[in-house]
């Protein structure tokens, strides 16, 4: 049957493209690009097909079985490559191949003059393959493998311009920070396997259903370790430092990896294994100081801190991509917080809408950067509204969606998170509202400064609209950014996370006002936050020539500009831990192990040798004496 093989086809198409480009079409950048775009387009079509075929057969969470392959077998361990097709993965498939496909297309224009276009597109295809693997994985180890591959491909893409020192440093940092998270992830997987003896998601889930407190005192630790993986990929506090630096990569890469897909993988994974967080929570004795916290509490805390911290930092950034990067961090914090507040549906909803409008924002920023010959400082832009109308329009729509202005898609998904927070914990609700206000503030600042007013630099004055191959993806992305609130994504997801519950179908008009009917206070306060953020930004930045905030905030602004000194603190930490350990080990190796012990051995051997040389004089009398003495000794011993 074709549809049983569809997940394989979707997964392998980009891989085939990546391999073919690497091996055969390195020289022909244009053809490589077409190959890569073709592969992802086909994968998108196959995903739509799969969606259409599977949907009627999907009774809530039930999943269909697809061709399975035993990948690895050892005594007592079996790892199967099997793909999971359910609502969650179907939605992600469409996002990854759909949004990803548009970004591929956009890259065709953006990277047209790059010398290593083939390498770029091979990386893009390889990344798509790895990401699809995470989406389809039905097994902890399989997910971990693709998890690592995503880290690898993002390393290659961030470091595309590796000859630049900053890009080379950034890709290294991204990979290493991800590795820290993966360390926890792997231990979590081992912990779960060690106790349940299973690795397939369904098998672990089934086991936990039979033995709800089977993991016992390790339950919270297991959840937390798994979360560590998400912390790295989704760049959550305290592993958030790599994402802003990753903006050194080409802008479409930022859109693909650092807005729509890779960073969403952490949230997706948390939703995928949410059952791990639903078992009775307990900490082992040596972690008893954490008693009273569940693993989910830690998840929510990490997400909340990230959301607030990143929003504060974004307020004082001047680089257009960095503002968007911190905004991404902040929105990811929202999603992770929603998972932590036991609302995976809300998190996935926001993930979906965010993928549309944040990819659009990045691509819009890319269009601006392209037009201004790689100028990224918003204070050297301005007046782009007239020069780049298509970019301007689409950017405006995406900004409105991100800020959460009704009826744009971001409003609905953000409102679900606000309502959830209001229901669970008032502290998180206040935090979320504050972040919403900050979001509107920094996005309005960006918009006022970069697009309105007068051109502040020569290149801004000579800007032209980007070619069609770049503006068409912008327009196509604008459609879901505006309307995704009406697609019924939330009810689609509700049926995954709460199977069997009656879900009312709303008309579009009812959908529009549902937030106000459902949790009016949350919705109204959210809108108030937007209004507040916008008016503050309007007062400060409409027609501003330079940023007035540093004078007003003083020290706080400096801290924000310096990203609250996290990079400095971390490099200090690395210096006093690993650098020191490495130095110590090297010193010990050089002087103690190789020096004292080996040279010592060398020395004693030589000493013995010298001693023996004294005996070996070549003098017959000495030899005779020694022989006689020996004989005497032997006689003495035996005759005694």
């Amino acid at each position, binding site marked *: 049957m074709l549809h049983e093989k569809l997940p394989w086809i979707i997964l392998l198409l980009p891989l085939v493209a990546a391999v073919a480009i690497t091996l055969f079409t390195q020289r022909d950048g244009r053809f490589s690009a077409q190959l890569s775009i073709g592969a992802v387009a086909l994968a998108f079509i196959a995903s739509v097909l799969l969606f259409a075929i599977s949907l009627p057969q999907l009774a809530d969470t039930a999943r269909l079985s697809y061709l399975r392959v*035993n*990948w*690895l*077998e*050892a*005594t*007592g*361990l079996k790892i199967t490559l099997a793909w999971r097709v359910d609502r969650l993965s179907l939605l992600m498939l469409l996002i990854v191949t759909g949004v990803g496909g548009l970004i591929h297309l956009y890259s065709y224009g953006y990277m047209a003059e790059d010398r290593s276009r083939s390498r770029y597109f091979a990386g893009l295809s390889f990344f798509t393959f790895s990401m699809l693997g995470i989406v389809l994985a039905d097994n902890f*180890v399989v997910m971990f*493998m*693709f998890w*690592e*591959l995503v880290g*690898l491909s993002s390393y290659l893409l961030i*470091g595309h311009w*590796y*000859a630049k*020192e900053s*890009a*080379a440093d950034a*890709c*290294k940092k991204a*990979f*290493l920070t991800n*590795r*820290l998270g*993966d*360390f926890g992830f*792997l*231990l979590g997987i*081992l*912990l779960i*396997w*060690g*106790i349940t*003896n299973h690795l397939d998601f369904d098998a672990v889930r089934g086991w936990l259903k039979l033995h709800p*407190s*089977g993991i*016992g*005192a*390790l339950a919270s*630790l297991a959840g937390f370790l798994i979360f560590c993986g998400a912390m790295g990929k989704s760049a959550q506090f305290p592993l958030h430092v790599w994402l802003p630096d990753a903006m050194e990569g080409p802008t479409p890469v930022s859109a693909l990896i650092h807005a729509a897909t890779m960073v969403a993988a952490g949230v997706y994974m948390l939703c995928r294994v949410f059952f791990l967080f639903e078992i009775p929570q307990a900490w*082992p*004795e*040596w972690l008893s100081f954490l008693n009273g916290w569940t693993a989910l509490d830690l998840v929510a805390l990490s997400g909340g801190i990230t959301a607030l911290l990143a929003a504060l930092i974004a307020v004082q950034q001047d680089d257009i991509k960095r503002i968007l990067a911190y905004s991404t961090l902040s929105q990811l914090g929202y999603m992770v917080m929603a998972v932590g507040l036991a609302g995976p549906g809300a998190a996935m909803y926001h993930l979906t809408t965010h993928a549309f409008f944040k990819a659009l924002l990045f691509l819009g920023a890319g269009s601006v950067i392209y037009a201004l010959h790689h100028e990224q400082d918003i204070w050297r832009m301005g007046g782009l509204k007239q020069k780049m109308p298509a970019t301007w329009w689409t950017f405006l729509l995406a900004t409105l969606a991100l800020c959460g202005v009704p009826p744009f898609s971001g409003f609905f998904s953000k409102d679900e998170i606000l309502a959830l927070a209001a229901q669970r914990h008032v502290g998180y609700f206040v935090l979320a509202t504050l972040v919403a206000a900050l979001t509107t503030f920094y996005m309005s600042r960006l918009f006022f400064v970069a697009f309105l007013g007068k051109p502040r630099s020569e290149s801004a004055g000579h800007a032209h609209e980007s070619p069609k191959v770049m503006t068409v993806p912008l327009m196509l992305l604008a459609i879901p950014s505006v309307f995704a609130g009406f697609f019924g994504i939330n009810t689609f997801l509700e049926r995954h996370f709460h199977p069997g519950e009656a879900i009312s179908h709303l008309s579009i008009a009812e959908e529009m006002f549902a937030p106000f009917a459902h949790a009016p206070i949350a919705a109204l306060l959210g809108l108030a936050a937007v209004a507040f953020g916008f008016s503050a930004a309007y007062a400060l930045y409409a027609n501003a020539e330079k940023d007035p905030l540093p004078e007003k905030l003083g020290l706080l602004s400096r801290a924000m500009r310096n990203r609250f000194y996290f990079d400095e603190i971390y490099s200090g930490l690395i210096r006093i831990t*690993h*650098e020191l350990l*490495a*130095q*110590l*080990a*090297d010193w010990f*190796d050089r002087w103690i*192990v*190789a020096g004292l*012990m*080996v040279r010592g*051995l*060398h020395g004693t*051997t030589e000493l013995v040798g010298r001693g023996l040389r004294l005996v070996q004089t070549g003098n017959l009398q000495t030899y005779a004496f020694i022989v006689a003495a020996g004989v005497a000794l032997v006689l003495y011993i035996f005759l005694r």
Partner: protein
Amino acid sequence: MLTWIICLPLLAALLLTLVPRQNTSVIRTIAIGITAADMLLALGLFFAFDAAPALDGYKFVQRVPWIPSLGISYYVGVDGINLGLVVMGAIVAFAAACVSSEIKSHQKEFHILLLVMTGGILGAFASLDLFFFYCFHEFALVPTFIMIGLWGSGEKKNYATFQITIYLTIGALLALAGLILLYLQRPVGERTFDIVRMTRYFAENPIRAADQNLIFALLLFGFGILVSLFPFHTWAPLGYGVAPTATAMLHAGVLKKFGLYGLIRIALPMLPEGAKAWVPVLAWLCLGNILYCGWVAMRQKDLNLLIGNSSVAHVGFAFLGIASLDLIGVTGAVLVMVAHGFLAALSFGLSGYLFHATGTRDMTRLGGLLQQLPFIGTALVMALLAGCGVPGFANFVGELLVMFGAWKGSYSPHPHFYVAAVAWGGLVVAALYALRAIRHLLHGPTTEIAGEAQDATVWRRVPFVLLLASLICLGVFPRLLTDKIKASAEATLKFDSGKRPSPGLSVTAINPARK
């Protein structure tokens, strides 16, 4: 077939003695041609393995009695455990012959030694007779010393040669003492060097625990020194640093695995009690290999020293797999051995190429090589990434299996501590030094020294492509090998896994009833 694989290089070495020394192209052709033929034979062996009939669990068996009074016979055969090593050895030998064009003086002698070394290694892995097992190893070991001493480079050449000779000789002697003691355990008249029969005999008539402890210790440290077990590892980075490329590839890649193979083939099945007594110590020493040598690698400025230290770190995984006393762990250990063989050969080969292209191995003086040398640079990136456990390469699968095996292993009351530390070493520390090397050597602006380097021509790419392809092939389709290892490991190794204590991180952990 197996005998041909072993003898072909040795016969070729004899043939080379007849070739006049000026005819370097003839010498090169013979060496490359013979190793290529050997490699093809070994690959043929690999693909014929599943269908071949088995005798006592071994296939392609050939046996010729030699000294019946002592129980010595020429006895070769392969099972899932040494099959991969033989094939890997043959492939690496071909790659090493290919890169030996860098040798500019006394090519004839060098190639003879190289072929002798190849034959010795393959013989050691294929032998099922203890006597030949050991002698073949010595046959391969002695050329190593000569090659490093005569064709080595660098200021510390003499010291390094001296050190590697002393260390490996002591290691080999300790192992020899252990093997002789083992041989003497059987009553006079029944004594044999036949590994298969010895294993069966000692399984039925276990040796006294005290003797087992002694012999295991001798084998552990003897073989351990040969494999650069911490803290007896300092010979390795230094020795490989000065060794000619082909020697480093063959020794680090293939010959070094002899010690690990000896532990798996001889020590584990014949001395189960000794193993139980010693593995807690071994587990600690593994951490020395993986973490400590990883940290040492972080500090290296010389590429060869970095690769040497990281290679020492990698064998730590194989040791941990052995120490886990678990079939998953041992399967992983064998896979790590094969994977590391390819990887070490690849890394040293590339490093040798860079040295000849740029004249230095000092990473601080190089930079931006990826632009200048797209092929060599890409291959080096892949090698370094494979070294830090990126999926898609065989090393990842091996290390994963080792960690899974060690997690449930019964070698210590706190297996999770070791695995956590090892995972830190494999995931984080390894990534730190690998990415640093990429950053310094390959990324960034091109330095003056690097600017003049030439990329490899098509023919010189062959060995690197071959090694990379082997790594990726096993990384993507690990069952090509693991299925064979699994069957043989289950047949030869018996760990009483039923009685092991349930794992748990803390005393308060509730252990549910398990099926």
